[in-house]
C-alpha cells in the first residue's frame, strides 16, 4: 500500500496541472490551487518521514518498460531529504511567484504555473526513483518542463538562453547519461538502486569505473560541473521565481541529488573508494568551486553572480559525493538542504529588488538597504549561511565537508574549501555591504519601498529557515547516515 | 492407289515446293533491292517509290510463297488477311506521309512540273 503513496505523490502535482490550466482565466483561483497543491504535497511527503525513520522502505514496481527495465519507485532517506526540500520550498516559491508575476505583469502566467507544477512532479519523481531508468525519465521530464519557464519571455534573448539551456542539458543527458545507463545495464543486468552499489562485484575495472563515473557526472549536466555549467548562467533570462526554482529547489538540486544517488547506490561508496572511480572529480569539483567563485566576483548582474555562486556551491556537493565516504555523502546531502534554503532566499531577494525598483545590477544597489530593510536583512542571513558562518545552517555542511576531506586524507581540499569561503565572502557580502553602507544615488527611493507582501513573506520565511536548520541539522545527519554504508 | 497417282502427288508436292521457293526468294530479292533503293535514291519522294517495292512486291511474294507452303486452310486464310490489311494500311501511311511532307515544305527533286488533266 505504501508504495502507491509514492506514485500518488509523484502524480499529484502533474494531475493538478489540469485544473490549474482550467482555472487559467481566474488568476486568484489558479494560484490558490497551486499553493494548495503544494501544501498537500508537502503534507504527503512529511507523512513519509515517520515510516522511513522507522526503517520502512516503501517500494513499488509500477510496470516494466522493457524486460528488466522498470518504472520503479522507492523511497530512502536521501530521496526523502530531496523530496522534502522540493516540496517544502515549492509552496513558498508559488506564493512568491504570484506576487512577482503580477508585480511585473508577466504574460502567459498559466503556462508558467503549469510548468511549475510539472517541474515539481519531476523533482518528486527523481527523489523517489527506484532505478536509473526512472531517474532518467524524470530527469528528462524536468529538463523539458523547465524549458518553457526559461524561455518564458519569448524574446530573442530568452530564446537564445533557452537554447543553451535545453541544448546543453539534453546533449549531456542523451550523449553521456543515457549511454552510461545502458552500459550499467549491460554490465550488471539491472538498474535498480541497491544499497552497496550495483556495480560492486561485476568485475568492472578501475579504469572502466572511472570512465563510467565520468559519463555519469558529465551526463548529469544539471550538476553543472565545469565545463558543462554554461546552461546555468544562460538560464538567468528566466523570471526570478524560475531562477529560484531552478537554482534552489528543483533543477540543480536534482542534478547533484542524482550524482549523490548514483555514487551511493550505483557505484556504492566502498566500491567507488576501492576503485577510486571518483577520485578525479575531487579535483574537477575543486576547480569548479574556485573558478566559479572567482567568476562570480566579476559579475555585475546580480542574478548572474548568484548563478556562478550556485555553480560553485553545487560542486561542494559533487565534492562530497566524490569523496566516496560516508561523511562526504552526508555532508553533500546536508548541503543540498542548506544551500537550497540559502540560495532561494538570495534569489527571492534579487527578485524582490527587481520588483520593487527594477534594479538588476550589483552596482545599482548602493543605499537600497534602508529602503528595503527586510529584504536585505534576509539577504545577509542567507549569504552568511552560504559562507558557512554559525549560527546559519551552512556552517554544518561546510564543517562536515571539511571533516570528510580530512577523513579521506585529502588535506589539500581543506585549502580549497577555505579559499572558496573567502571568495564567497567577497562576492556575497559585497552586496548587503553596498546596500547598507554606501550612499544611494538620486533615484534611490526614500523611505520604505519593499516589494509586495507576497514576495517579502516567503523570503523572510526562508531566511528564518536558514537559521532554524542550524539547529535541526543533526536529525538530518543521523537520518541520512542510517542509509549509507561505506567508509566514514 | 496406283504408282502413277503416287508419282503425281510427289510431283505436285515438288512443284509446290519449287514455286514456294521461287516466290520467297523473289520476294527476298525485291526486298533487298528496295532496301538498296532506300539508300541510293536522292530524296524523300523517290525513296517512297523504293519503299513501295518492298511494301507490295516483296510482301506479296513472300506471303504468297508461305501460302503455298501452308496449303489450303486457315493458315492461308490468315496470310491472305495479312496481305489484305497490309495492302490497305501501308499505302495509307505512305500517302499520309507524302502529303504531310509536302505540306511541310519538303519539295520533290523535280525539274519540270507538268500538269495534265484528264476528265
Amino acid at each position, binding site marked *: 500500500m505504501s508504495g502507491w503513496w509514492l506514485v500518488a505523490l509523484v502524480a499529484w502535482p502533474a494531475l493538478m496541472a489540469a485544473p490549474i490550466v482550467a482555472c487559467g482565466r481566474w488568476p486568484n483561483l489558479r494560484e490558490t490551487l497551486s499553493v494548495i497543491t503544494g501544501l498537500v504535497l508537502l503534507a504527503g511527503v512529511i507523512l513519509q518521514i515517520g515510516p522511513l525513520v522507522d526503517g520502512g522502505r516503501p517500494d513499488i514496481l509500477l510496470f516494466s518498460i522493457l524486460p528488466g527495465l522498470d518504472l520503479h519507485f522507492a523511497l530512502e532517506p536521501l530521496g526523502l531529504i530531496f523530496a522534502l526540500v522540493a516540496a517544502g520550498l515549492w509552496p513558498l516559491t508559488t506564493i512568491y511567484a504570484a506576487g512577482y508575476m503580477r508585480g511585473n505583469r508577466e504574460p502567459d502566467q498559466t503556462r508558467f504555473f503549469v510548468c511549475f507544477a510539472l517541474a515539481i512532479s519531476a523533482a518528486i519523481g527523481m527523489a523517489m526513483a527506484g532505478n536509473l531508468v526512472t531517474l532518467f525519465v524524470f530527469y528528462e521530464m524536468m529538463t523539458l518542463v523547465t524549458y518553457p519557464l526559461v524561455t518564458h519571455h519569448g524574446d530573442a534573448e530568452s530564446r537564445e538562453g533557452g537554447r543553451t539551456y535545453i541544448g546543453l542539458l539534453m546533449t549531456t543527458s542523451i550523449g553521456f547519461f543515457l549511454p552510461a545507463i545502458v552500459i550499467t545495464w549491460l554490465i550488471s543486468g539491472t538498474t535498480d538502486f541497491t544499497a552497496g552499489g550495483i556495480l560492486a562485484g561485476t568485475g568492472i575495472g578501475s579504469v572502466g569505473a572511472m570512465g563510467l563515473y565520468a559519463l555519469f557526472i558529465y551526463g548529469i549536466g544539471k550538476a553543472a560541473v565545469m565545463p558543462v555549467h554554461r546552461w546555468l548562467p544562460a538560464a538567468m533570462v528566466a523570471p526570478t521565481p524560475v531562477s529560484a526554482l531552478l537554482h534552489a529547489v528543483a533543477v540543480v538540486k536534482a542534478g547533484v541529488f542524482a550524482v549523490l544517488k548514483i555514487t551511493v547506490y550505483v557505484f556504492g561508496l566502498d566500491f567507488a573508494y576501492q576503485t577510486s572511480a571518483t577520485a578525479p572529480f575531487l579535483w574537477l569539483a575543486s576547480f569548479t568551486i574556485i573558478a566559479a567563485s572567482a567568476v562570480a566576483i566579476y559579475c555585475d548582474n546580480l542574478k548572474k553572480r548568484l548563478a556562478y555562486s550556485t555553480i560553485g556551491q553545487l560542486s561542494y556537493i559533487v565534492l562530497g559525493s566524490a569523496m566516496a565516504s560516508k561523511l562526504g555523502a552526508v555532508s553533500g546531502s546536508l548541503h543540498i538542504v542548506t544551500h537550497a534554503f540559502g540560495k532561494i532566499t538570495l534569489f527571492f531577494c534579487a527578485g524582490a529588488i527587481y520588483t520593487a525598483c527594477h534594479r538588476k545590477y550589483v552596482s545599482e544597489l548602493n543605499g537600497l538597504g534602508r529602503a528595503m530593510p527586510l529584504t536585505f536583512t534576509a539577504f545577509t542571513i542567507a549569504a552568511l549561511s552560504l559562507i558557512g558562518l554559525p549560527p546559519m545552517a551552512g556552517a554544518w555542511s561546510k564543517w562536515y565537508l571539511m571533516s570528510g576531506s580530512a577523513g579521506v586524507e585529502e588535506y589539500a581540499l581543506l585549502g580549497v574549501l577555505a579559499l572558496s569561503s573567502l571568495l564567497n565572502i567577497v562576492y556575497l557580502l559585497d552586496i548587503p555591504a553596498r546596500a547598507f553602507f554606501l550612499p544611494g544615488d538620486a533615484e534611490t527611493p526614500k523611505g520604505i519601498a519593499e516589494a509586495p507582501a507576497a514576495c517579502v513573506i516567503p523570503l523572510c520565511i526562508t531566511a528564518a529557515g536558514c537559521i532554524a536548520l542550524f539547529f535541526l541539522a543533526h536529525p538530518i545527519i543521523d537520518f541520512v547516515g542510517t542509509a549509507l554504508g561505506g567508509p566514514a | 492407289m496406283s504408282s502413277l497417282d503416287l508419282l503425281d502427288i510427289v510431283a505436285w508436292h515438288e512443284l509446290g515446293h519449287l514455286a514456294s521457293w521461287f516466290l520467297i526468294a523473289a520476294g527476298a530479292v*525485291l526486298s533487298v*533491292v*528496295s532496301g*538498296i*533503293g532506300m539508300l*541510293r*535514291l*536522292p*530524296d524523300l*519522294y*523517290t525513296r*517512297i*517509290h*523504293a519503299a*513501295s*517495292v518492298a*511494301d*507490295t*512486291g516483296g510482301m*506479296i511474294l513472300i506471303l504468297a510463297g508461305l501460302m503455298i507452303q501452308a496449303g489450303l486452310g*486457315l493458315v492461308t*486464310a*490468315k496470310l491472305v*488477311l495479312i496481305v489484305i490489311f497490309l*495492302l*490497305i494500311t501501308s*499505302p*495509307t501511311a*505512305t*500517302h499520309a506521309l*507524302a*502529303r504531310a*511532307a*509536302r505540306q511541310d515544305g519538303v519539295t*520533290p*527533286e*523535280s*525539274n*519540270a*512540273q*507538268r*500538269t*495534265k*488533266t*484528264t*476528265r
Partner: protein
Amino acid sequence: MRHLVALMSGLVLLWLILSGHYTPLVLALGGLSCVLVAWLCARLGLVSREAVPIALLPRLPLYTVWLLFQIARANMSVTWRLLAPRRFIKPGLVEVGLGQRSDLGRAIFANSVTLTPGTVTIGLENGRAMIHSLTPLADDDVTEGVMNRRVRWLESRHARAEP
C-alpha cells in the same frame, strides 16, 4: 440496316477465319464479340456506306486482280530502276483531275496509285490528285487515265447510290 447486316456478316466471317476453334463456348464468345463490335461501330458512326462499302463488292475481285497485275508490272520496272544508274530516274509531279464521285472512290484511287510502285499520291483535294512519279513512263500510265477509269468503274454502283 443493310450496312449493319453486312458489317455483322463481315465480322462473323473474320472471326471464323481467325478463330479456328469451333467449340460451342468459343463460338458463343465469338457471337458476343461480333455483336459488341457492331454495336460499338454503330456508336462510332461506322455503320455507313463509306465504312461498309458493300456496293463495291461485286466488282472488287476483278479490280483487285487488275490492280495486282498493275503492281506486278510496276514492280518490275521500278526494281530495275532502283539498281540502274541515276539517269534512269526522272521524278516528276503530275496533277490529275479525278472523276470519282465519292470520297471512297477517291481514296481507293489514291491508295491504288500509291500501291503501284513508281507513283505516289501526295495530295488529294478538291477533286484533284497530286501524284509524284519516279519516271515519266509511270507518269504516263496514270495520266492515260486507265486507273482512273477502273476506279470509276469500281465505284459506279456505289456512286449511283449517292444523292
